[in-house]
């Protein structure tokens, strides 16, 4: 059967185009049910006899949700108790157009065989396809199509077996009544879920309809949002600006909007002006008159007590405006007039139980301080109290003080390590679900053997003395090295990288999953793999004494580490040893050892030193960032000790060769694919970024020049205080803070002059050496493989726009992984100090208006020592001298780089946000500093009391 789809389209030039598309209607689309004898089908996925748990429909039935049910109640559909669901093509298409995340989740459900979800192509079926009628809206047509398909199923099932039913789930009253008129069973999702046995938790997961929770008193509190059309027009005419909403962490009544295509940050203050915008939303704002401009109050305001939904917002706002802002402090301010795109996600947090005992409506307090509290409805507040839970926002009606949401799931007890890790991963948007079956299906079948065919395509390097050098306990070994002297007197150095792209083929589910994850995320006590364990810790990992596939870079070098020839090849290697940095260092240092492996390591080490020297001469920066290691108790998994990571010569040795391999690869792929090479650049920071560094160095009499990377490196080298060896390290830490973020990009999207990698002082750079844990490296491997003719290309690889969008995701994931890593360190630090109060040596890193930023080298920690806080009612006050950048209190003056003794403990006043607390021990400031830990009687079991100074 054939039909034509005809529609009009505006072309880019503003013209109108009539588009005609064929649409074939078929008679071979199967129903997907096990009982059907009519449709000739293989492995149908709807069960023959699904048990009904519903009180409304007591017989076996299939569910058929409409688009809005899928879009808004996906949390319910995902529940394992919801099975045997028919997803119509109409629904699937609409969901895809309206919400990408919901579409992805829906697809996952369909591909999960346990869910028994069947996607029925009703638009291609000649019996269920309908045409739009004259005057019918597109949505109405789709609703009718859904009813038509439901009707078809009902009739079809009757034909097969009288008992099975199809139940249409729709929240649209009109749709429901029309369906009933047709003799269909139709319920709203609320009715249906309520009728289920043990509905409990599932009920809470229901998203609230817009009016469901509305307060009886329909007093409008917030200004109305403008319709999208008006916003678009306003933006065109310049009346409104479009930007991303960034709520303030400190004050829930303040926010900034970063205006798109502009560097401006616009300040927004007060409920009415914030107008229900939530963190990350894309909003339209209107500038206020200059006389109404405000400035950040510099107050830390946390919303604590629960207010009624119709609380007086205007009153709260008025309090703010009592004191007019002096002219010179005013910042450009605006108000939100409309929401262009909500970017709501699911939020982790805890329940703030309502004071009323029997109440079903409670407030949810998100862990992320920039998210407002959310009103949810639950009947099991007692169960949820003290738990970390996940909640989604459904709506924010204009007459409600809080946004409305629904409970999604429970994570576990507050403070549990697993729970807190889960929170950390969720909050940093790290995909960490177990790999799905469809992903795992693309793994090689075990036992994995190397075939003749494989041997033919690869160079056999098994005879070489290859070894890997990694941190202790490393199971995902990406790289291995070898060194050998050639007969012509030159040296051959090889870097062998795990050949992950051999196992992960472009476009399959495994590849998509890896591309989405982007990177392996390392937390202190766990690792979230980018690729399944079989690959990361086994088949790809270049472990010793097993044959592994590698992608090798082989250089011929002379003894001055000058490259004579570079060669890339796919290979088979057999690593002779997996060493730790320390083991490798011991071998190098042990004069007695002279086996080929050790000789190789020594050779590599010698070359690495030359390479490093050359690099530094070129202006590469050696920057420092405090890195720490936790020693974790093997039983309790609690950290028992913290120490800074030690750097050995061998660390730098491996690093040098990895850098070299990355640079060589970057050159090669850029040469071969000038338009679509995946590269990494590190932009030079704008000079103003260096101001704090220059100021700090100057206070000790050193001038740092920052006009180029080379000069910066040199002047950093010269800034050494003989009496304070930590001074230089601190300078480097500061310099690190001035840097920009390095990013992946696709070479065709920016001009060659911007490729520069500032930190490494390299014209061109990429990531090639860690394909097990970075997706960028997999892309680079594929490009390199194509350029040496070892593998096939595919269209997406050569499409610079697609590649750039992959790069954007990688940059995002990379950033989030870093944040998650840091958050994990913080979490461990808190766990470590939970049972301890320790005095430690520290240095003043920055002097701030009301605080000192202290670096504690032993723990690689940086923490804030607050000086004048509102909570501290008594004691001396500190004076901040902005000119000299010092804080004074009586005779004691704090400069940058001053050495202090601080006491570390945990502030437990807020259970969601445990804070590391710093108190001054030395130099003594009467009334402010505290006695040494050993002299104090610290009762650890009674946390939240404020310590009273003696």
């Amino acid at each position, binding site marked *: 059967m054939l039909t034509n789809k005809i529609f009009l389209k505006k072309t880019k030039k503003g013209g109108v185009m009539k588009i005609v598309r064929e649409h074939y209607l078929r008679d071979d689309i199967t129903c997907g049910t096990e009982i059907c004898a009519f449709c000739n089908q293989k492995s149908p996925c709807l069960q023959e006899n699904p048990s009904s748990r519903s009180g409304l429909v007591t017989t076996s039935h299939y569910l058929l949700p409409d688009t809005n049910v899928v879009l808004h109640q996906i949390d319910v559909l995902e529940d394992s108790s919801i099975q045997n669901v028919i997803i119509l093509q109409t629904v699937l298409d609409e969901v895809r157009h309206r919400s990408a995340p919901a579409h992805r989740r829906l697809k996952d459900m369909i591909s999960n065989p346990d869910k028994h979800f069947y996607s029925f192509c009703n638009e291609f079926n000649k019996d269920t396809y309908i045409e739009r009628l*004259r005057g019918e809206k597109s949505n109405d047509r789709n609703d009718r199509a859904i009813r038509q398909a439901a009707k078809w199923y009902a009739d079809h099932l009757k034909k097969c077996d009288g008992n099975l039913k199809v139940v249409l789930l729709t929240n649209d009253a009109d749709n429901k009544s029309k369906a009933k008129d047709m003799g269909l069973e139709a319920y709203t999702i609320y009715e249906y879920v309520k009728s289920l046995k043990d509905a409990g938790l599932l009920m809470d997961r229901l998203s609230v309809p817009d009016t469901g929770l509305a307060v009886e008193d329909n007093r409008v509190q917030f200004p109305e949002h403008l319709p999208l059309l008006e916003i678009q027009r306003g933006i065109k005419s310049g009346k409104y600006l479009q930007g991303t909403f960034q709520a303030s962490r400190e004050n829930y009544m303040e926010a900034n909007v970063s205006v798109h295509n502009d560097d401006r940050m616009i300040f927004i203050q007060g409920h009415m002006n914030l107008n229900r915008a939530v963190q990350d939303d894309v909003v339209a704002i209107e500038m206020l008159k200059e006389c109404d401009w405000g400035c950040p109050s510099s107050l830390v305001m946390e919303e604590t007590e629960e207010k009624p939904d119709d609380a007086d917002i205007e009153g709260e706002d008025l309090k703010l405006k009592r004191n007019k802002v002096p002219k010179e402090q005013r910042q450009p301010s605006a108000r939100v007039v409309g929401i262009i795109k909500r970017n709501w996600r699911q939020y982790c947090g805890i329940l703030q139980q309502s004071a009323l005992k029997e109440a079903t409506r409670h407030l949810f307090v998100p862990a992320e301080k920039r998210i407002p509290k959310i009103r949810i409805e639950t009947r099991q507040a007692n169960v949820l109290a003290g738990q970390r839970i996940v909640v989604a926002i459904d709506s924010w009606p204009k007459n409600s003080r809080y946004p409305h949401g629904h409970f999604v799931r429970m994570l576990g007890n507050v403070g549990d390590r697993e729970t807190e890790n889960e929170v950390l991963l969720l909050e940093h948007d790290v995909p960490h679900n177990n790999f799905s079956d469809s992903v795992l299906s693309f793994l090689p079948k075990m036992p994995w053997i190397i075939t003749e065919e494989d041997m033919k395509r690869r160079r056999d390097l098994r005879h070489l003395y290859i070894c890997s050098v990694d941190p202790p306990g490393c199971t995902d070994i990406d790289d291995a090295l070898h060194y050998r002297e050639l007969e012509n007197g030159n040296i051959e150095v090889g870097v062998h990288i795990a050949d992950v792209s051999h196992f992960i083929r472009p476009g399959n589910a495994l590849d998509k999953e890896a591309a989405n994850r982007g990177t392996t995320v390392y937390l202190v006590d766990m690792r979230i793999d980018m690729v399944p364990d079989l690959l990361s810790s086994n088949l790809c990992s270049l472990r010793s004494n097993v044959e592994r596939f590698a992608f090798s870079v082989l250089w011929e070098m002379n003894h001055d580490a000058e490259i004579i020839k570079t060669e890339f090849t796919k290979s088979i290697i057999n690593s002779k040893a997996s060493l730790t940095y320390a083991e490798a260092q011991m071998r190098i240092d042990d004069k007695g050892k002279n086996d080929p492996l050790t000789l190789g390591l020594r050779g590599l080490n010698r070359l690495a030193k030359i390479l490093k020297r050359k690099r530094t001469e070129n202006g590469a920066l050696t920057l420092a960032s405090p890195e720490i290691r936790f020693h974790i108790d093997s039983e309790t998994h609690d950290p028992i000790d913290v120490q800074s990571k030690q750097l050995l010569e061998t660390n730098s040795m491996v690093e040098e060769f990895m850098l070299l391999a990355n640079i060589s690869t970057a050159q090669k792929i850029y040469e071969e694919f000038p338009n679509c090479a995946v590269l990494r650049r590190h932009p030079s920071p704008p000079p103003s970024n260096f101001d704090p560094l220059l100021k700090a160095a100057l206070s000790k009499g050193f001038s740092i020049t920052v006009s180029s990377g080379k000069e910066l490196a040199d002047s950093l080298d010269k800034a050494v205080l003989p009496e304070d060896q930590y001074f230089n390290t601190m300078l480097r830490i500061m310099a690190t803070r001035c840097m920009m973020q390095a990013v992946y990009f696709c070479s065709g999207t920016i001009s060659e002059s911007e490729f520069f990698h500032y930190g490494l002082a390299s014209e061109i750079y990429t990531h090639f050496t860690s394909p097990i844990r970075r997706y960028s490296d997999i892309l680079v491997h594929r490009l390199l493989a194509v350029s040496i003719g070892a593998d096939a290309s595919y269209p997406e690889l050569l499409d610079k726009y697609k590649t750039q969008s992959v790069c954007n995701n990688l940059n995002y994931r990379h950033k989030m992984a870093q944040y998650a890593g840091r958050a994990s360190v913080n979490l461990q630090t808190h766990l470590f100090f939970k049972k301890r109060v320790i005095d430690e040596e520290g240095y003043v890193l920055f002097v701030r208006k009301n605080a000192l930023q202290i670096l504690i080298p032993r723990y690689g920690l940086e923490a804030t020592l607050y000086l004048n806080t509102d909570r501290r009612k008594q004691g001396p006050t500190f004076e901040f001298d902005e000119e000299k950048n010092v804080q004074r209190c009586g005779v004691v003056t704090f400069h940058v780089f001053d050495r202090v003794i601080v006491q570390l403990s945990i502030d437990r006043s807020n259970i969601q946000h445990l804070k590391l607390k710093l108190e001054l021990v030395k130099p003594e400031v009467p009334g402010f500093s505290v006695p040494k830990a050993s002299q104090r009687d610290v009762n650890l079991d009674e946390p939240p009391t404020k310590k009273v100074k003696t």
Partner: protein
Amino acid sequence: MVDVLLSDAEKTFIIHGIQDNLRDDGRGCEDYRHMEIETDVVSSTSGSAKVRLANTEILVGVKAELGEPSSGKPDKGRLEFFVDCSANATPEFEGRGGEDLALEISNMLTRAYDCPKCLDLGKLCVIKGQQCWVLYVDILLLECGGNLFDAASVAVKAALYNTCIPTVTVSQDEGHVDIELSDDPFDVQHLDVTSAPCIVTLSKIGHSHVVDASQKEEACCLARLMMGVTEKGTVTALKKEGSGSLDPSSVEEMMETGKRVGQALNKSLMEVLCLEEQKGKKKEKTGFLR
């Protein structure tokens, strides 16, 4: 013009026949040959029609696009005629071979429609002086069997009748103009083509004149008069063509015939078109598949 070679004897036979109101295919002097009209034949156009007049086959596609109005008529839409003589009709049209004929036909059509009462072009105005609908009327000549002008004009009228113009809403805001297309595919405007002209060609053969000359008759004809005639008998354009000359009295006579025939032609054309529209979607679409 596509030529047919005739001997003198053949010509004489035809001329004498016509004097007795008897033509070689049995028609009278004011009779048209069998004509087949079908609309909505090309789905990628806003309106289309196919006309087959004996062996003359013409396909017309109308495309509505948004464009700027001409400076002289800021509140009117535009009508653009373009004729393409396909080489399918005869190898002589290959390359640029058909361009002269094409230009002749499109000029005649432009002139016939260049009359404010033919078609309400004001309806095609979207924003005065800025945006209007431009109707590109593309005429594809597929086979030549004589009387191309008349056939083309009938096909054009039928295609315009079939044309659907999407409804647009204009919103103006602080100098910004937004044109929004209607979401409903049925929300379209039709053109009123009742008073659109058809071209009637009168060929002077011997002392008489005939309408709808066949190719053979065209070969005998030395002068012809082409006129655009509306259903009311208004003459919108007039053109004398051919190597021979006409005396004023016979021009008058021919015009009278032309008006009469033109009115009848317009009337029956509209009847056919209405009938076809009533059949609507149910009609079996055939196009070139017979």
